[in-house]
C-alpha cells in the first residue's frame, strides 16, 4: 500500500508549480473575472508551449505519455491556483473522442491544432427542455446530398464565445428509441446561421444559448456513425473519469482567514465552533481526495473507474457545496462583502465560492445521476423511480 502519487508525479507537480508561479498572474484572474470566460488564451498557449495540453496522451499522438498519477498531480496544482482550464478540459475531451471515433482527415486536421493550443472546442449537448436527459435532444440534422442542415437551439454552451468549434449532438432519426437516433458533428462556430447569446450565471461565469438556423455543414463534419451519436458520447465519458484528487483551496483559504482573524471576530481560530467546523471540513476534504485518488489509481492500473468516479464526483460536489455555505456562515456579516471590497475576508474568495459551488452537483452528471450509477452498478439495486 502506498498513498503517495510517487516521485515522478511529485517532480512533475514541482514543474507545474514553477510554471504557474510565472504564468498564473493576478492579471489572468482579473481577465477571467471581468469576462466571465473560464479560459485565458495567453495561459493556454503557454501550457501548449510546455506540451501540457495533452500531457497524458501517448507520445505518438503528440502527448507526453504521462501517467494518470502524474496527471492527478497536475490537476491538483491547477485547482490549487484556481487556473481557468475548463476550456482545455472540454477541448481535450472532444479531441480524445475524435481520436477514437473521427475520420483520418478530421484527426489530421483537429488533433495537432488542439494540442498546439490553437483551437478550443465547446460542448453542444444540453437543450432547453432536456437538462440532464441529454438523449432527449431535438436539434435536428437533415441530410442534403453531401451536406447536413442543422436547426435547433442549445443551452449552456459554455465557451462558445471564444471557441472555434462546437461538438454538437443532433437528432437524425425520430422513428427509433431516443438513444438510437442521435448523431454527433464537429461544427465550426463561424458557420453562417449560428447565433450566440450570453447567459449570465450566479457564479459570474458566462455561458450561452446557441441558435442553429439552417446551418449547413459537410458530411465530413460528422463524428462517428449516422444515428450512432450515443456511442460517441459514451466514448467521451470514459475520458479522464478520475477527476481531481486533492482540492483544498477553499479549505486553506478558510484556515488562513481564521488564523489571521482578530480574537474577537466570530471566525477566529480560537473559537471552538470555528475549530470544529474547520476540522470537519478538513476531514471531508481528505475523504474527497482519497476517493479521487482511488479513481486515478484504478486508471493507472489500466482499469476504468465507473462507480468509483461517481462516488468521487458525488462526495466532492456535495461536500464542497455544503462547506461553501457553512464557511460563509462562520464569517458572519463580513461574509456578505464581495470581491472588490477591501474589507471582504479573503478578498471575497469565500463568497465567490458560495456563488459558484451550486453548479457542482448539477453539471458533469448531476448528483442524482451519480447516485443512480452507484445504486445500480455498485450496489446492484434494481432501477428506481
Amino acid at each position, binding site marked *: *500500500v*502506498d*498513498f*503517495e*502519487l*510517487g516521485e515522478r508525479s511529485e517532480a512533475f507537480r514541482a514543474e507545474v508549480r514553477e510554471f504557474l508561479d510565472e504564468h498564473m498572474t493576478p492579471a489572468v484572474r482579473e481577465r477571467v473575472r471581468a469576462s466571465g470566460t473560464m479560459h485565458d488564451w495567453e495561459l493556454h498557449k503557454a501550457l501548449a508551449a510546455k506540451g501540457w495540453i495533452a500531457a497524458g496522451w501517448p507520445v505518438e499522438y503528440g502527448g507526453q505519455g504521462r501517467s494518470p*498519477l502524474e496527471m492527478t498531480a497536475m490537476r491538483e496544482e491547477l485547482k490549487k491556483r484556481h487556473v481557468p482550464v475548463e476550456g482545455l478540459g472540454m477541448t481535450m475531451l472532444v479531441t480524445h473522442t475524435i481520436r477514437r471515433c473521427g475520420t483520418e482527415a478530421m484527426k489530421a486536421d483537429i488533433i495537432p491544432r488542439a494540442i498546439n493550443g490553437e483551437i478550443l472546442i465547446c460542448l453542444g449537448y444540453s437543450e432547453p427542455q432536456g437538462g440532464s436527459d441529454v438523449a432527449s435532444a431535438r436539434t435536428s440534422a437533415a441530410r442534403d446530398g453531401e451536406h447536413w442542415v442543422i436547426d435547433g437551439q442549445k443551452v449552456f454552451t459554455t465557451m462558445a464565445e471564444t471557441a472555434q468549434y462546437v461538438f454538437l449532438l443532433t437528432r437524425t432519426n425520430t422513428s427509433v428509441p431516443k438513444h438510437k437516433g442521435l448523431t454527433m458533428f464537429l461544427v465550426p462556430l463561424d458557420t453562417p446561421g449560428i447565433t450566440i447569446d450570453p447567459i449570465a450565471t450566479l457564479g459570474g461565469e458566462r455561458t450561452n444559448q446557441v441558435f442553429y438556423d439552417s446551418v449547413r455543414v459537410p458530411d465530413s463534419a460528422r463524428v462517428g456513425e449516422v444515428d450512432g451519436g450515443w456511442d460517441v458520447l459514451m466514448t467521451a465519458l470514459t475520458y479522464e473519469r478520475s477527476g481531481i484528487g486533492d482540492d483544498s483551496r477553499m479549505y486553506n483559504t478558510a*484556515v488562513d482567514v481564521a*488564523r489571521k482573524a482578530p*480574537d474577537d471576530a466570530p471566525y*477566529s*481560530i*480560537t*473559537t*471552538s465552533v470555528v*475549530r*470544529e467546523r*474547520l*476540522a*470537519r471540513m*478538513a*476531514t471531508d476534504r*481528505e*475523504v*474527497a481526495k*482519497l*476517493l479521487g*485518488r*482511488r479513481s*486515478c*489509481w484504478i486508471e*493507472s492500473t489500466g482499469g476504468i473507474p465507473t462507480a*468509483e468516479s461517481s*462516488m468521487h464526483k*458525488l*462526495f466532492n460536489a456535495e461536500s464542497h457545496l455544503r462547506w461553501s455555505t457553512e464557511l460563509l456562515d462562520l464569517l458572519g456579516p463580513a461574509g456578505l462583502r464581495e470581491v472588490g471590497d477591501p474589507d471582504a475576508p479573503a478578498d471575497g474568495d469565500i463568497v465567490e465560492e458560495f456563488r459558484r459551488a451550486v453548479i457542482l452537483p448539477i453539471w458533469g452528471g448531476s448528483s*442524482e445521476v*451519480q*447516485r*443512480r450509477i*452507484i*445504486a445500480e452498478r*455498485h*450496489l*446492484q*439495486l*434494481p*432501477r*428506481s*423511480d
Partner: protein
Amino acid sequence: MDLTPAPETTALVSALDALLAKESTPARVRVAETTGFDPALWATVTSFGIPGLALDAEIRSDELLVALAETAGTHLASVPLVETLVTASLLSGCTGEDAARLVAHIADGDIATFVLHPIRTAVAQLVPAGAIADIVLAYDGTDLTATIAPAPETMVANVASLPLADRDLNAGERLVLASGQHAAEIFATAQRRWQLLTAAQLVGIADKALQIGVEYVRGRVIFDRPVATFQTVAHRLADHVTDLDGARLLVQEAAWAADIHSPRATELATMAFCFIGEKATTIVGDCLHYHGGYGFTLEYDIQLYYRRARAYPLVWGPVAQEWQRLADELYGAVPMGAA
C-alpha cells in the same frame, strides 16, 4: 500510489474471515451477549495467532492490524480483538523482565487491556475488555503500570453487551512498565492505535449492515414493488456506500501513515475515528429503518449492528468533543485564556 494490500495482509484476513464466518455466527453472537465474551471463539482466535501478530514488531504493521479489526467488525466477533492487538503492541514497546513476563502471558491467551485515557483515580470506569482481562495497563501522566488480578467476569450491563467493567487498579499486583517521556510516547501510540482500530472495526460493522440492508430492500415487496425501487431508498444507500468507501480509505491511509512514521499519522487516525464514528450510526440506522417494524424486533440481526455501531465510539468518549481534539492536532491548542 498502490492500494493493493500486502500479500500477507490478504492471506491473514481471508483466513480470519473464514474462521469468523464459521465461529461468529449471529446465533453465537446472541449467546455471548449475556457475558460480552465467547470463550470458545477466543480460544480459536488465540490459536490463530492474534496476540502474536501484534507482539512481533517484524510482522506487525498498522495496515495488517486495521484489516484484522475490520474483519472482526464484519462478524461482530465477541472477543477483545482490538484491545488485545493494541495492548500487545503497547507491551512490546516496554523493556524489562516484568514486561517480558506479561508478553508471555498474552502469548498464552491471557487477556490484557488498557485504560484509554490517563487515569486520575484508582478506579477506572468502563474499561474496554475490563470484564475479562487479567492484565490492565494504565498511564497516570508519569508511569505506565500494569495491574494483574483475576478478571471480574461480570460486565457492566450496557447497550451493546460489550465486556466493559470498572477496575480498581490498586487491587492486585501492580508493576511499573515504563516512565517519563518513553511512557508518554508509547501510551500516545496506543491511544492512536485504539482509535484507528476501532474506526476499522466500525467500517466492518457498517459494511456488513449495508449488505444486510441492500439484500433486504431487494427482496422485500411493499406497495407491489421491491423497497429498492423507491428512489429515496436507493439514493440514500448510494450516499452511504460512498461514505463507507471514503471511511475505509481514510482508515487505510491513516494506517499507512503510521507505518511510514508520517507526522500526519495521529491526525488521520482521529479523522477516521470521527468520520466513521458518526457515519456508522447513520448508515446502520438507515439499514435498520428500511426493515420497517421488523428492524425494531430482536429477531432480525440488524439491531446487533445498530447497537454496536453506536457503542464502540462511546467507549472512547463523545465524538462531538473529539472534533476539538482533532482541531488541536491540526491548528495547535488554543492558548490558555484566549477566547
